[in-house]
């Protein structure tokens, strides 16, 4: 049963995403659309499964949702902050910095979500990964306390992601 399920639906989360995407595309929520979306959601990952060989393990959807809410809030706040910096801080007063975030996360999917979150949130951009994948290089637009930024990243995002990607 499990194996058959795995074969049919190698990435259940992806199936879900696709079904939602389909409904969004149709711009119209009807039963038929949802059913068709699910069918496509099964069919397409099945076609493309060769390119996503290893399924991420123990993904927690619920925690992911709450994480998303936090991130979206952060994005809104961060954007206002950055906009403020852009408009008010002169170039000479700007204090950009590199910070290095050592990673506890191992799964590529998890690291990618973290990196993405960092880029979308307060004045930070994920710039690079170390050559074994154990640290993340982040560029900060304007900070007096690089270590504080690093700690906040680890505390606010990585900790949560460690719970989502078990």
């Amino acid at each position, binding site marked *: 049963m499990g194996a058959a399920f795995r074969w049919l639906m190698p990435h259940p989360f992806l199936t879900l995403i696709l079904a939602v995407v389909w409904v969004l595309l149709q711009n119209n929520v009807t039963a038929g659309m949802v059913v068709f979306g699910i069918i496509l959601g099964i069919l397409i990952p099945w076609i493309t499964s060769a390119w996503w060989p290893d399924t991420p393990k123990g993904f927690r959807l619920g925690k992911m949702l709450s994480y998303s809410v936090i991130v979206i809030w952060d994005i809104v706040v961060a954007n206002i902050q950055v906009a403020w910096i852009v408009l008010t801080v002169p170039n000479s007063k700007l204090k950009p910095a590199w910070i290095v975030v050592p990673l506890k996360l191992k799964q590529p999917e998890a690291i990618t979500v973290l990196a993405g979150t960092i*880029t*979308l949130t307060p004045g930070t951009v994920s710039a690079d990964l170390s050559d074994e994948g154990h640290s993340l290089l982040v560029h900060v*637009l304007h900070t007096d306390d690089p270590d504080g930024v690093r700690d906040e990243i680890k505390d606010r995002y990585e900790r949560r992601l460690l719970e989502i990607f078990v």
Partner: protein
Amino acid sequence: MMLETLAIYAAATSLLIGSGFVLVGVIGLLKFNDPMTRLHAPTKVGTVGIGMLLLASMFSAYADGDASIHEALIMAFLFVTAPVSANFIAKVNIHKRDCDTPPSPPRDDTWSTLRTPEEDQS
């Protein structure tokens, strides 16, 4: 009726906010004097700006009487892809030595971009 009017106001407001953000993003792009700092402005501010425009579109559609949600899809696309775009551009800056050299990573040898490929070593 009331809701539709509200939606129009919401749409207009979103439009104004969105265009403001767009503008700020571009100003940042133009203003900052370092490639890495320039990267911050448009990738994020711009993204939110477009997000607001999309929101405006949704409000506007609602005001016209046919509710529309598919704008969310575009928003999702933007939010998912923007970090990767930024990441690549940052890598370009690091690779071309167009920015300050980043500090070495603690556990590994170097940053992946800076590692000289084996086949190029001679």
